[in-house]
């Protein structure tokens, strides 16, 4: 079940004459390289611009090799650039995003695990209908929920606060995490639960001692999914927060409209990359497990 099975991928290009193998492999790699370049080039251009002085960008244009290289714009973007009259860079918005994304990820994953456990192992009359309703949230456009959320946040006194965003993202995320966890737990044999019940374990003991230890693959999937989703989310942040309480995705927009007339392309570029780093980091660390976790149980 949760055992990781090391197996060799089927490779249809590994047979045949040497000529055919070399030709077919080179065709595949050439195509892959073309796509990789198309995809990575914009990222490279943005990155190079973070190192160039503003005058140089203005003079030679956005797409050019840097002549003078300096890391100072990264420092400015992080700590001293002026946005909306406050000269503290994006660091506080970065912290806001962390304060929002980490708790919301933890809460939505924890609730999803318990939901999935109940909906797969402690089935009750109407469990499938309830599951259907929960997963409906996956297909509901976020724009549709703006007005209800505005109402709820207003009632709770959480407007323009990080706590409000945590609440929104936790609730919005439950659909996904429940869907993932429930389907994953369906592959846990029911006999384990029966054996544990005869052994005298109750609802929470079974969850803690049997279900949770089997869950790392799906926890990794939901954490990556939730964290990147919440971090990159723009709409709720832009609508429900302003000023000091914005997450980084919404705050970066303020760069373009800073009102001074002069665009600091190099600092903007550095801030954009900073905003993209955490999801990128999470994906690089956990991407392997992500794909494995998503496909686990799909074949068996």
């Amino acid at each position: 079940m949760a055992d990781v099975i090391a197996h060799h991928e089927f490779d249809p290009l590994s047979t045949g004459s040497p000529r055919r193998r070399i030709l077919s492999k080179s065709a595949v790699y050439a195509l892959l390289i073309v796509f990789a370049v198309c995809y990575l080039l914009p990222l490279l251009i943005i990155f190079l611009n973070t190192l160039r002085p503003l005058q140089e960008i203005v003079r030679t244009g956005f797409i050019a090799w840097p002549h003078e290289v300096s890391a100072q714009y990264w420092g400015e973007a992080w700590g001293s650039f002026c946005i909306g009259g406050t000269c503290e860079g994006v660091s506080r918005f970065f912290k806001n995003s962390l304060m929002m994304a980490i708790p919301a990820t933890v809460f939505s994953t924890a609730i999803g695990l318990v939901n999935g456990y109940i909906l797969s192992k402690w089935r009750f009359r109407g469990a499938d209908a309830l599951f259907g309703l929960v997963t409906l949230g996956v297909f509901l456009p976020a724009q549709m929920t703006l007005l209800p959320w505005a109402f709820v946040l207003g009632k709770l006194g959480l407007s323009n606060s990080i706590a409000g965003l945590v609440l929104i993202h936790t609730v919005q995320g439950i659909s996904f995490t429940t869907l993932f966890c429930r389907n994953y737990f369906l592959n846990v044999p029911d006999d384990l639960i029966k054996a544990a019940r005869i052994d005298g374990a109750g609802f929470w003991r079974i969850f803690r001692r049997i279900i949770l230890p089997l869950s790392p693959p799906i926890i990794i999937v939901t954490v990556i999914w939730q964290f990147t989703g919440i971090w990159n989310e723009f709409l709720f942040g832009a609508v429900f927060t302003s000023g000091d309480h914005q997450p980084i995705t919404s705050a970066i927009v303020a760069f373009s409209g800073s009102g001074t007339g002069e665009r600091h392309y190099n600092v903007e570029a550095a801030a954009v990359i900073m905003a993209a780093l955490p999801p990128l980091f999470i994906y690089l660390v956990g991407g392997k497990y992500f794909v494995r976790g998503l496909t686990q149980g799909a074949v068996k």
Partner: protein
Amino acid sequence: MSSLVINDLRKSFGGVEVLKNINLSAESGEFIALVGPSGCGKSTLLAMIAGLESVTSGEIRIEGRLINNEAPKNRDIAMVFQSYALYPTMTVRDNMSFGMESRRVPKAEQAETIARVAALLQIEPLLGRKPSQLSGGQRQRVAMGRALVRDPKLFLFDEPLSNLDAKLRIEMRSEIKKLHQNVAKTMVYVTHDQIEAMTLASRIAVMFKGILQQYDTPQNIYERPVNKFVAGFMGSPTMNFLDATISPDLGVIVDGGDGKVLPLQDGQIAGLVAGQKVVFGVRPEHFSPVEEKRAERKGGRSGVVSVKVDMVEPTGAETILMTKLAGQDVVVSCEPDDMHAVGDEVTLAIDMTKICLFDPKTEARL
């Protein structure tokens, strides 16, 4: 004292009744086998005894206590699953201590119990391993070990050997028998394998279509099955059923043949009427060469028949002949040394003391 009593037990899923009016009781220390083809309700019955399925009506008592609505953990039972259901993330030791831990047994006592059971089952070297590092037979032992640390009133086994290969299955079968002799606890054992049931059980409950067909000792089930289903289910190769008629002198004439009368024993003719249609049941091993006079040596009578061999299946220990007797299919088991070839006409004696007669309509034994 009866350790397990089941009275008028019924179970319905939706509108479908899967168990009908089950009555069963087991004395303390007995080994009961629930046997039947898949879908007969035997596993459901076991799950109801374990408390994993609710009771629709009727009652289940363990040592006199009504447990219909008790939680599984309060029934004082232990269960071994077909899939073993070992907790995959725990070591063998943790698997065995999990139940005691849930029950708040002191640590020292846990260690002592595990040591005792591990020694009994010879699994001491495996205690630190995870289930995925064990072979099928070792998992089976650990699953039994987990049940044994409980010291319950009742052991439940749900087809525990069906995931093992043939050789290991026979080994583990005798281990379970030995275990039962050692611990002397009441055991209820579900299987679809009639040989397991015959070899292990002190009494067998044969189930079919949710109905308890017969509940008796293995010998009685085999020799005096109550109906055609039980007769056909128990025994391998299965019993032959031939259409036949009762002769005027109260013998048996196989339909479609030369009208030769096979003599019945005195005890078998009560209630029979000349001309009555019957199903004549003979087990493959009750055919023998005429000159052996197997029935006569016991003071019984033989019925001599002539069969035509269609196919020969040597199994080593015995040879199975697929034959035609008066145009009806008959399976005969014979000594490998009796070299019969396809197409041969063979004259054989049927041990008439062992035969069964069934009513063709009700299928009950006459």
